[in-house]
């Protein structure tokens, strides 16, 4: 009983501490993710208070955190939105993919982490944080801006790209050959198509399995099915993350919206644990050697995202200020970069240095992103020669 008391006190202290950090983060206008990571790193060194007896819980909770992060990413867009997004923004989406995955892959190759490391880092630097971006755009009152749909459609494309990328990554991390990798690409393409068709044509049946007018029943079915699918996917050597993500895409309509509302607080709780655990498992002594690369990646991939946003907004006929705003909005990286790094490190197929680089990189980008979105206008005004805007 005494042990339970200690565990409760430790857990309570951790959650309360995270709450304080989160409040602080939004007050100074950045995402709390970097602070959670730093909190994890601080505890991990055994520096402050070594935590005993809560590892079983935190380990499982961080797994649930990943499942919920990806389930909600899948729920975020309806299948219809995904398909229209793909049709309308495929060119900008491809530009985004090439420009932003290349720097990560190149740095990984330079560091001698091989093709698997390159594939992982490509994902880390590619995927923007839709969570941070939506929050920042909302806070800055830019949701009604004309460039915002452009930003959102790029995020939709990234969502789809994730659906393809994650199964491939998990297959490669599982140690398949080149042929096996190609098979994984084929299989994941087929699976994504099936899930999209199911979501478009039979989404209401999937939703009906889970939906319930009673919030309690609904929550239990939702969590139950998410964990079941995640567990089965894990057993089939596709990661739990991929399974829950696809389930999220398959649930549609009003069920998806209710599910999002219901799960958001849970996701925030478990995702916070996930970031802390990731920080705990990152060896801080490995950060200084890769810090230079993290800074280089941060600068380069901030520029490539701004370029992506600029290009995408220009093709929609948006003025220069709007293009700059769209670019700056996309800079933030966060939860999904950490999820990708976590998958890779967890599989043991990449070196621990990758976790250190990904941590340092996300620390920089999760802070830099919201800041960039805030300061873009004054900076752009200095840079962009103010030609009279044509009224369209």
């Amino acid at each position, binding site marked *: 009983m005494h042990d339970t008391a200690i565990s409760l006190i430790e857990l309570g202290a951790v959650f309360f501490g995270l709450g304080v950090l989160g409040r602080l983060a939004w007050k100074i206008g950045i995402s709390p993710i970097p602070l959670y990571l730093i909190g994890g790193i601080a505890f991990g060194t055994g520096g402050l208070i070594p935590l005993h007896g809560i590892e079983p819980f935190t380990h499982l909770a961080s797994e649930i955190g990943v499942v919920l992060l990806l389930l909600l990413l899948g729920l*975020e867009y309806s299948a219809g939105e995904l398909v229209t997004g793909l049709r309308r923004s495929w060119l900008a989406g491809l530009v985004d993919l090439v420009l932003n995955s290349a720097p990560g892959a190149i740095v990984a190759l330079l560091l001698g982490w091989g093709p698997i490391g390159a594939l992982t880092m490509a994902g880390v630097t590619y995927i923007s944080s839709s969570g941070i971006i939506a929050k920042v755009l909302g806070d800055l009152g830019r949701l009604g801006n004309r460039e915002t749909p452009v930003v959102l459609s790029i995020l939709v494309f990234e969502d789809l790209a994730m659906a393809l990328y994650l199964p491939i990554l998990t297959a490669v991390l599982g140690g398949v050959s080149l042929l096996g990798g190609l098979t994984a690409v084929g299989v994941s393409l087929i699976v994504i198509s099936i899930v999209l068709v199911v979501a478009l044509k039979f989404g209401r049946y999937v939703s009906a399995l889970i939906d319930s007018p009673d919030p309690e029943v609904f929550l239990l079915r939702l969590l139950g099915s998410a964990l079941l699918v995640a567990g089965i996917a894990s057993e089939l050597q596709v990661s739990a993350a991929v399974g829950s993500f696809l389930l999220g895409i398959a649930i549609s309509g009003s069920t998806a919206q209710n599910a999002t509302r219901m799960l958001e607080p849970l996701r925030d709780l478990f995702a916070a644990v996930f970031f802390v655990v990731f920080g705990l498992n990152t060896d801080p002594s490995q950060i200084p050697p890769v810090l230079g690369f993290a800074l280089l990646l941060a600068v380069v991939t901030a520029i490539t995202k701004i370029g992506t946003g600029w290009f995408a907004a220009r093709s929609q006929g948006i003025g220069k200020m*709007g293009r700059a705003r769209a670019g700056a909005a996309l800079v933030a990286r966060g939860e999904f970069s950490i999820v990708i790094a976590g998958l890779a490190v967890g599989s043991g197929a990449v070196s621990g240095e990758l976790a250190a680089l990904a941590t340092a990189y996300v620390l920089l980008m999760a802070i830099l992103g919201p800041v960039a979105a805030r300061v873009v206008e004054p900076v752009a005004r200095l840079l962009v020669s103010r030609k009279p805007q044509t*009224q369209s």
Partner: protein
Amino acid sequence: MDVTVTPLPGLGTQQDFVTRSGHRIGVITYRDGRFELIVSGHDDPDKVAASAGLTAEETNTLANLLGAPQLVARLSEQQREVAGINTWQLPVNQGSPYDGRALGDTEMRTRTSASIVAVVREGTVHPSPRPDFEFSAGDLVVVVGTADGLRAAGEILERG
């Protein structure tokens, strides 16, 4: 009017149009049922200068504030074709004998041959109110009739 509908994936839908004065005015309908009124800036039409979150009820009120004059204007327009018939908006003031009483009690048609076609209350239009409709102070009563009838109607609402 040229209304542009833009889906905001993951958030909702935005509908806007450009006014003659060069502003982009629109409404974002969020998935969770919230509304947001947006007005674009003047020097950068891509940027929102002001936005206000609205509940469904507030949206309704705003729509009626903008729509009520339209309704009266439309009624006036229809009546103008009939010579000698006008539309007036008559207030039910504080201290009116009909504050808190039913519309039927005024016996408006019988006494003035003018008809009550609508009541505007706090920005909400109640078209074709029934005889059991209860007036309260602050209502605007939209009445159609001859000039004499309308004057008489005004007297009734003021003094009974």
